């Protein structure tokens, strides 16, 4: 498109400013993590790495990190199984209510997190009468992790043709062999990308977790609890930096695994035309 030099430069500057705006708070927290004082004062008076050491040896942080990892892995595992099955059903078979499946899968993340959280909380405590434990957190996270796996798998299945599977069956493979040697290799990178995104989503989740967690804190809940304790803020800075790295790295790898980064990790999830957003 023909644009004047001035317009080009204007757009370039605007782009730079928006990117600076997007990254500024993240950079600020990273700088604060090296603060050598306990008070959060700007400009910093000195630089040190002592809070990294303190955070590393903090038992609360370690427990919370372990809980988060367990919850993330559990939710990702459930999401992988159910998301892949739902994707196969929708992409490969025609059945009554097929259109509503993609809508239903998306619902947990289209609705506000507080609604999902309350709904799960009242079901667990009032209807089912189970105690809130790590297991309930995993189930809660799985509800919205399913959609990212589903979206990635469905987009890949729609792009791959079924003729390979038919050829495999014609050559005498039974359905499990076909899945193992033909379908799964085609799907693998989409599933890995979906799983990484699901883990990142679960690792970062606050709202549903507050409603489904018992005594065990996940890392975001630990951060939320400690925000009101000024003495712990230096450790929170360090934990914040670690959490950001732990959630950004899987997503970065996921964008490399799929051909179109925006399609795989964007709000809409896969190539499916659905309204969906990661739960913040």
């Amino acid at each position: 498109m023909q644009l004047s030099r001035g317009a080009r430069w204007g757009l370039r500057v605007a782009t730079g400013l928006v990117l600076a705006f997007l990254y500024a708070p993240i950079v600020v927290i990273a700088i604060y993590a090296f603060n050598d004082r306990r008070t959060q004062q700007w400009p910093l008076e000195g630089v040190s790495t002592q809070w990294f050491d303190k955070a590393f040896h903090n038992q609360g942080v370690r427990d919370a990190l372990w809980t988060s990892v367990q919850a993330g892995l559990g939710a990702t595992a459930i999401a992988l199984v159910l998301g892949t099955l739902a994707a196969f059903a929708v992409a490969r078979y025609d059945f009554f209510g097929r259109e509503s499946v993609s809508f239903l899968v998306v619902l947990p993340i289209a609705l506000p997190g507080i609604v999902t959280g309350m709904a799960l909380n009242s079901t667990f405590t009032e209807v089912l009468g189970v105690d809130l434990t790590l297991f309930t957190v995993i189930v809660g996270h799985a509800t919205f992790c399913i959609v990212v796996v589903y979206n990635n798998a469905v987009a890949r299945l729609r792009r791959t043709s079924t003729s390979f599977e038919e050829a495999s069956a014609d050559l005498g493979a039974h359905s499990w062999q076909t899945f193992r040697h033909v379908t799964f290799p085609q799907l693998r990178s989409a599933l890995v990308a979906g799983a990484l995104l699901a883990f990142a989503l679960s690792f970062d989740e606050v709202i549903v977790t507050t409603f489904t967690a018992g005594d065990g804190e996940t890392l975001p809940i630990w951060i939320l609890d400690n925000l009101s304790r000024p003495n712990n803020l230096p450790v929170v800075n360090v934990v914040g930096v670690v959490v950001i790295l732990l959630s950004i790295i899987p997503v970065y790898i996921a964008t490399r695994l799929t051909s179109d980064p925006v399609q795989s990790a964007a709000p809409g999830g896969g190539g499916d035309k659905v309204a969906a957003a990661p739960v913040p």
Partner: protein
Amino acid sequence: MVAYLGSLAVLFVAAFWQLDTFTGQIVHEYSFSNFQTLWENDVYRQIVLRTVGIAAAVTVTDAIIAFPIAFYMAKVASPRARAALAVAVLMPLWASYLVKVYAWRTILAEDGILNWLLDPFGISRPGKGVIATWLVFSYLWLPYMILPIYAGLERIPNSLVDASGDLGGRPGMTFRRVILPLAFPAVVAGSIFTFSLTLGDYITPQLVSSKQFIGNVVYANVGVANNLPLAAAFATVPVVVMVLYLLVARRLGAFEQL
């Protein structure tokens, strides 16, 4: 899935239950009294208006900020720069939500960076309030607006833009008469995210503002007051607003842009 839908059903049924004010027990009798409370109580009505107002303000702000960068990505940048920019916009979206809000809290604090920057000019920071909430929400949901607009602009064929230029349309006119109408559904698609995410959030207001929003009231009624029925009734407000919003968005063709 069944478990999830069941949970939602329980919640909406619960909106019609009552709380016995003497015993603090939930009475399973059905009535509209919770909704009546919402409608007649001035404080609640104000909170609903404030929340919807800030959601609208955030949406407009994000659309204005997002358009130039999305336009640069889609129509000016080279293909390689485009991919790099898309990832660069996407990454902050996945960085921990809570840490981002906390970072803003630090920036907006009394002895934070913003005051330090503004001090030479004699201006004071927005402090904890509606403006801080608006700023932080606009920051948080900005990538949700940039990405759909970028995708929408990318779909506009360059030949259309060139044709407008060949027919004598000056850049400003081409922008207003060709690009803007074609990109509008994408803006609406992005606004679905900015609007709905603002409606349901209670953590950001809690951390950077002292004002109440719908989410805070719901949370307070579940956690502190233990009045699940009223909370459930209040939670239906953003859901209803969103359903109406989605119906309008569908008419404007936003769904094809997602």
